[in-house]
C-alpha cells in the first residue's frame, strides 16, 4: 500500500469542513492519515501552531466516520495530556468541528475535577473519545473491568509527549501504555511532540517495543530572538534583573500582548511589583504562578483568552497549556537554563505556524549575558538539549504493580515481560523486579515479619492478587507521581486565603518580615495553627526573600555552548561592551576557562585562601562538589570554612592554601565521602519522602486534610533513619539513591565532569580575586543577611571586590 500523503486520505466531510473555513490540510496532517491507514503507530513532531492536535485526531475521526453506525460502541480513542486544563480545552476544541460536521461522535474529558457521577457513567457507557491524564489512565487500568473497557480501543493519542518522557510521570505513562497494548493489541499509538533533540529516542519511548513511524511537521520558521542590551549597567551578580525592567516595560508597551517568563516564584513577584511601579500607562499586567490560589490563576487565564491583558508575568506554570492565539512577544527574564525549555516558551508566542515567534532574552547579570547569547545563537541554529533515556523509577514500578494487582490477578513472568516493553524499564533485571514485587507484597524486608499482613497473596495458580478490597482503596488514594512539597496556606488577617507557599520559605520568616506574594507586599504576622497569617504592608520595600536559585539546573548542552562563547571571539564581539571589558580584564588578570579544561584560581583574601573553579555544571552538581571538596580539605588539614556555588562556578575558602589540586579533584571523592555525606543529607531525606509516597509506603497528604491541634505528624525522616541503619540495600533506598544521582544532588553529572577534567586542570595562583570570580564572591553571605541592611552590605563589599578585581596593579 502506498503510504504517501494525498488528499484522498481525508474523508469528504472533513475536507469540506476544512474548505469551509478556507483551510487546506497540511502535509503532516495528511501524512498522519496515511501512516495510520497502514496501521502504524506514529510520532509527529512539529512546532506549536501547526495544527498538531487536530493531526493527532484525524485518523481516529476518519475511522469513526467510516464505521458510522456499524461500530459496536466502546471506547475508541484515548487522549492523554500532561495537563488537566489541556484535556478539557482540547475536548472543547474537538466538540466544535464535531458539531459543525454533524458527526455522531461523543467526546468527554475526565480529570480529578470530574464529578464522581460522570466518572461512573463514563465507565459504564464509554464515550468514543476520552480525554484525560496519565494518572487517570492508571486509575482506569486498576478497575476490574479494565480489559473489557479498553477491548475496542483503536487509538491512543499522547499530547506534549516531550514533556512527559524523561520524568516519573513518563514512567507511569510508559507502564500504562504497556498495559494498554496487552489489553488492545491492535490499537495505534500517536505521539505529538514539540521538536526535540533526539527524535529517535522519543520514538523509541512511544514505540514501547513495537515500531513507530516519524512524521516531521518541519521546524517552522526560525524564531527572532534578541538579547537585551540593557540601557543601565549590567550587575555582576543577582537574579532579580531590576536594572533591565525599564527596558522590559518599554518592550511590553511596544507590543500587543507579551508573556514575561521568569524562573522562580520570587522572581515573578519582584518583577511584577517593579513593572507596576513603572506602569505609568496603566497597562493591564497580570501575575501567574503555581503558588497563587486556583481561582486567581483561572481569572488571569480567562482574561488572557479574552485578550484583555498586555502582559502576564509567569513561571513554568504557563510553559505548557492551552493555545492563546495572539501572543506577540515572549520575554525571558533571567537565564534560560536550557534550550528545550526556552524553545517551548518561545513557542508560546504566535501560534500561527508560518510566522516566526519573537522573543527577547533579558539577562540578570554578566554570566547570564553569556548564557543568553549562547542560548539565542543555539536556538537560531535549531539546536536543542536532551537528557538521554531515563531509567524508570522503582517507586513508580511499585505503584504500577499494585495497580495491576488491584485490577486482575497477574502472573509475575507475564507482568515482568510486559513491564520490560515500557522503554524506561527495558533494562530492568528480573532480580530487581522481584524485589519491587516483594516490596509491594510484604514490604520486602530482610527481616520477614510481615508475611501475615501481605497486600498481595498468591492463588492456587501462583498468580498474585490483592488481599482485600482495602488494597484497592489504598491504591486509588495514592495514585500518581507528583508529590507536592509541604505547603503552608497564606491568609490575610481576618481575610481570604491568598495562596500557598513552600513550608521551608515560611520557616525562615520572623514576625514583622515583609515579602512579596500574590502581587502584594505582605507582613508576616505569625502562624495560626497551620496557616501563615499576613497583613498588607503598603508603601514598604519588601525584604527580598533569599530565594535566588532557579529551580532548573543549567543543561549540559547549554553549559557547553556557554564555555564555547568564552573562546569564540566572533561571539564575544556581539556582547555588550561592559561584558566584553569584563572578559578582557579576566584575560589580562588570569585566563578564560577553555573547553575540556577546568580552570581553578587560588587567591588570598581577608586572611583566608580562596579556591574558585569554573565547571559550568549547574548549581546542584557544584553544591555536591563543594560538600565533597570541603570534606577532603578538612582531612588534609587545610581547615576549610565554607563554600558557595552558582550555576557556573564554585568557591571554597580555607585557612591554609590548597596546592595538590589533581588529588583534590580526583574522582574517587565520589566513593566513601559521598556515601558518608549522603547518609546525613537532608536532600536525601526529602528524596526518600517522595519515593516512599510514590511507592505506597506512606500515605499521600491530600488537600484539605490539614493537621489539627491534637493530631500528630508521622515523619518520613524517622522511617528513613531506621531503614538506613537496618537495611541500607532496601529497594526504596536504592530508588532514593538513584533519584538523588540525577536529581537534587546531580552526582551523575559531577562524575562525568571529574572524569573529563582529569589531568586537565589549569591552576592559576593569583595575588587577588579575579574578575570572573567576583559574581560568585558576591553570593557569599547572601543567604544569611536580610533586608535593607543586606543591600548596604552588598553594595559595600561589591564595590571593594570589583575595585580589587579590576585594579591593574
Amino acid at each position, binding site marked *: 500500500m502506498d503510504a504517501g500523503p494525498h488528499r484522498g486520505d481525508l474523508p469528504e466531510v472533513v475536507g469540506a469542513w476544512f474548505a469551509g473555513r478556507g483551510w487546506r490540510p497540511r502535509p503532516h496532517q495528511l501524512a498522519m492519515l496515511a501512516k495510520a491507514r497502514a496501521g502504524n503507530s506514529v510520532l509527529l513532531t512539529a512546532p506549536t501552531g501547526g495544527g498538531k492536535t487536530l493531526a493527532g485526531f484525524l485518523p481516529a475521526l476518519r475511522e469513526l466516520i467510516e464505521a458510522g453506525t456499524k461500530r459496536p460502541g466502546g471506547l475508541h480513542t484515548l487522549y492523554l495530556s500532561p495537563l488537566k486544563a489541556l484535556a478539557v480545552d482540547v475536548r472543547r476544541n474537538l466538540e466544535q468541528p464535531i458539531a459543525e460536521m454533524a458527526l455522531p461522535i461523543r467526546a468527554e474529558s475526565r480529570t480529578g475535577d470530574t464529578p464522581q457521577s460522570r466518572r461512573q457513567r463514563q465507565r459504564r457507557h464509554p464515550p468514543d473519545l476520552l480525554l484525560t491524564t496519565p494518572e487517570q489512565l492508571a486509575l482506569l487500568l486498576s478497575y476490574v473491568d479494565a480489559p473489557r473497557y479498553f477491548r475496542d480501543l483503536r487509538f491512543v493519542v499522547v499530547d506534549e509527549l516531550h514533556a512527559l518522557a524523561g520524568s516519573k510521570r513518563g514512567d507511569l505513562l510508559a507502564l500504562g501504555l504497556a498495559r494498554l497494548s496487552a489489553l488492545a493489541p491492535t490499537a495505534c499509538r500517536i505521539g505529538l511532540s514539540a521538536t526535540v533533540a533526539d527524535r529517535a529516542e522519543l520514538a523509541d519511548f512511544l514505540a514501547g517495543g513495537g515500531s513507530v513511524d516519524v512524521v516531521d511537521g518541519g521546524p517552522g520558521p526560525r524564531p527572532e530572538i534578541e538579547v537585551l542590551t540593557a540601557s543601565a549597567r549590567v550587575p555582576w551578580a543577582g537574579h532579580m534583573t531590576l536594572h533591565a525592567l525599564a527596558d522590559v516595560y518599554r518592550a511590553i508597551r511596544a507590543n500587543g500582548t507579551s508573556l514575561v517568563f521568569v524562573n522562580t516564584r520570587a522572581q515573578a513577584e519582584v518583577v511584577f511589583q517593579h513593572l507596576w511601579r513603572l506602569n505609568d500607562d496603566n497597562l493591564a499586567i497580570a501575575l501567574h504562578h503555581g503558588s497563587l490560589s486556583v481561582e486567581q490563576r483561572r481569572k488571569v487565564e480567562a482574561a488572557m483568552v479574552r485578550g484583555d491583558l498586555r502582559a502576564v508575568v509567569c513561571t513554568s506554570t504557563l510553559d505548557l497549556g492551552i493555545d492563546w492565539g495572539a501572543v506577540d512577544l515572549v520575554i525571558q527574564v533571567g537565564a534560560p537554563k536550557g534550550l528545550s525549555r526556552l524553545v517551548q516558551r518561545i513557542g508560546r508566542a504566535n501560534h500561527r505556524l508560518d510566522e516566526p515567534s519573537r522573543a527577547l532574552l533579558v539577562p540578570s547579570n554578566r554570566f547570564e549575558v553569556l548564557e543568553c547569547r549562547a542560548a539565542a545563537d543555539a536556538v537560531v541554529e535549531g539546536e536543542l538539549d536532551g537528557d538521554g533515556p531515563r531509567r524508570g523509577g522503582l517507586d513508580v514500578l511499585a505503584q504500577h504493580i499494585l495497580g495491576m494487582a488491584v485490577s486482575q490477578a497477574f502472573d509475575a513472568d507475564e507482568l515482568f515481560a510486559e513491564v520490560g516493553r515500557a522503554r524506561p524499564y527495558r533494562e530492568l533485571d528480573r532480580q530487581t523486579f522481584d524485589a519491587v514485587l516483594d516490596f509491594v507484597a*510484604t514490604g520486602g*524486608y530482610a527481616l520477614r515479619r510481615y508475611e501475615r*499482613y501481605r497486600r498481595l497473596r498468591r492463588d492456587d495458580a501462583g498468580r498474585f492478587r490483592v488481599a482485600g478490597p*482495602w488494597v484497592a482503596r489504598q491504591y486509588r488514594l495514592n495514585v500518581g507521581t507528583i508529590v507536592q512539597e*509541604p505547603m503552608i496556606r497564606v491568609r490575610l488577617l481576618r481575610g481570604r486565603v491568598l495562596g500557598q507557599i513552600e513550608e521551608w520559605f515560611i520557616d525562615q520568616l520572623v514576625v514583622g518580615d515583609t515579602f512579596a506574594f500574590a502581587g502584594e507586599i505582605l507582613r508576616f504576622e505569625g502562624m495560626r495553627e497551620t496557616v501563615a497569617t499576613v497583613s498588607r504592608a503598603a508603601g514598604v520595600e519588601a525584604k527580598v526573600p533569599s530565594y535566588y536559585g532557579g529551580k532548573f539546573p543549567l543543561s549540559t548542552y547549554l553549559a557547553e555552548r556557554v564555555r564555547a562563547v568564552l573562546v569564540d571571539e566572533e561571539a564575544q564581539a556581539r556582547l555588550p561592551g561592559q561584558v566584553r571589558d569584563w572578559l578582557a580584564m579576566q584575560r589580562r588578570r588570569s585566563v578564560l576557562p577553555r573547553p575540556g579544561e577546568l580552570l581553578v584560581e587560588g587567591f588570598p583574601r581577608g586572611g583566608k585562601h580562596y579556591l574558585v573553579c569554573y565547571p559550568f555544571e549547574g548549581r546542584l552538581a557544584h553544591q555536591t562538589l563543594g560538600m565533597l571538596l570541603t570534606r577532603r580539605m578538612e582531612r588534609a588539614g587545610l581547615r576549610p570554612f565554607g563554600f558557595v556555588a552558582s550555576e557556573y562556578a564554585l568557591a571554597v575558602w580555607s585557612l591554609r592554601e590548597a596546592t595538590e589540586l589533581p588529588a583534590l579533584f580526583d574522582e574517587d571523592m565520589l566513593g566513601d565521602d559521598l556515601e558518608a555525606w549522603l547518609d546525613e543529607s537532608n536532600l536525601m531525606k526529602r528524596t526518600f519522602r517522595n519515593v516512599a509516597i510514590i511507592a505506597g509506603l506512606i500515605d499521600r497528604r491530600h488537600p484539605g486534610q490539614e493537621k489539627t491541634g491534637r*493530631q500528630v505528624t508521622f515523619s518520613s525522616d524517622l522511617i528513613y533513619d*531506621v531503614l538506613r541503619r537496618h537495611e541500607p540495600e532496601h529497594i526504596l533506598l536504592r530508588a532514593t539513591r538513584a533519584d538523588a544521582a540525577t536529581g537534587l544532588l546531580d552526582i551523575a553529572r559531577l562524575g562525568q565532569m571529574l572524569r573529563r577534567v582529569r589531568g586537565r586542570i589549569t591552576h592559576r595562583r593569583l595575588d587577588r580575586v579575579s574578575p570572573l570570580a567576583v559574581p560568585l564572591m558576591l553570593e557569599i553571605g547572601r543567604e544569611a543577611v536580610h533586608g535593607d541592611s543586606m543591600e548596604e552590605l552588598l553594595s559595600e563589599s561589591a564595590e571593594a571586590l570589583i575595585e580589587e578585581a579590576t585594579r591593574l596593579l
Partner: protein
Amino acid sequence: MLINGARMLLHATGAMFWPAQALLVVADLHLEKGSAYAARGRFLPPYDTAQTLRRLTRAIDELDPAMVVCLGDSFHDAEAGGRIGSSDIATIADLARGRRWFWVAGNHDPEPPPGLAGEAVDEVRLEQIVLRHQPTERPPAGEVVGHLHPKAAVRLHGRRLTRRCFVGDGLRAVLPAFGAYAGGLDVLDPAFAPVFPAAFDAYLLGRDGVHRYPSRRLVPVTADDSVLHKLGNAGETG
C-alpha cells in the same frame, strides 16, 4: 531539671533519671508501631522495636537504675504482644533482670502484654513525685507524664531546628516520646496549656545532651517535612 523540689537528670535518649531514687523513667515507647501499620497494609520498616530497645539499653547501661518506670503507651496497641518478636521479649527480660520494672497503663495499652517481665500499675507515687501516663485535669505539683509527645522548635542562625523535648516548669514535667516511630506535638499547642499555664522550659534532645530553652525562645513547629497520617481508632495522643 527540678520537679517539685526533686532534682532530675535528663538523658539525651529522652529518658529521665532521678539519682536520689536510682529511678529511670521513659514514656511512650510505642513498641510494635511499625507492625501495627503493617497490619493495615503500610509496611514501615520492622526495626522500630529493636531500635527503641537499643536506645533504652544505652540509657540503662549508662545510668544503672534500680527501678524503671515505663510511663504508658509502651506498646502501640493491645495486639502488640502478639506481634512482638521473641528476641525483643528476651531483651526486655534482660533489661528488667535485677531491677524493679513498672508498666504504667496508657491509653494505647491499658494492659501490658501477658507474660512480660515487670508489674502493671496505673501510676507510681514516690516522695513528692507522681508518675502517670496522662496529665490530670488539674495537675497537682510533682506530676510527671508522657502521652503528649512534646517537640519544640528554635531558630538558630536563621534556621529552624525541631527536636523532641522534655518540658518542665519546676512543678510538673512532660517527657518526650521514646519510641523510634513516635511522632511529636508542638509544645506551643494548646494541649500543653493546662499543664503549663505560664512560662516553662523545653529541653531539646541533642546528640550528646539536652539543651534548655525558655518557652519565650521557642518558635512554632510547622508541618516539618512530615507526612500526616490519618489516625486509627486509638488515636495517636489520645
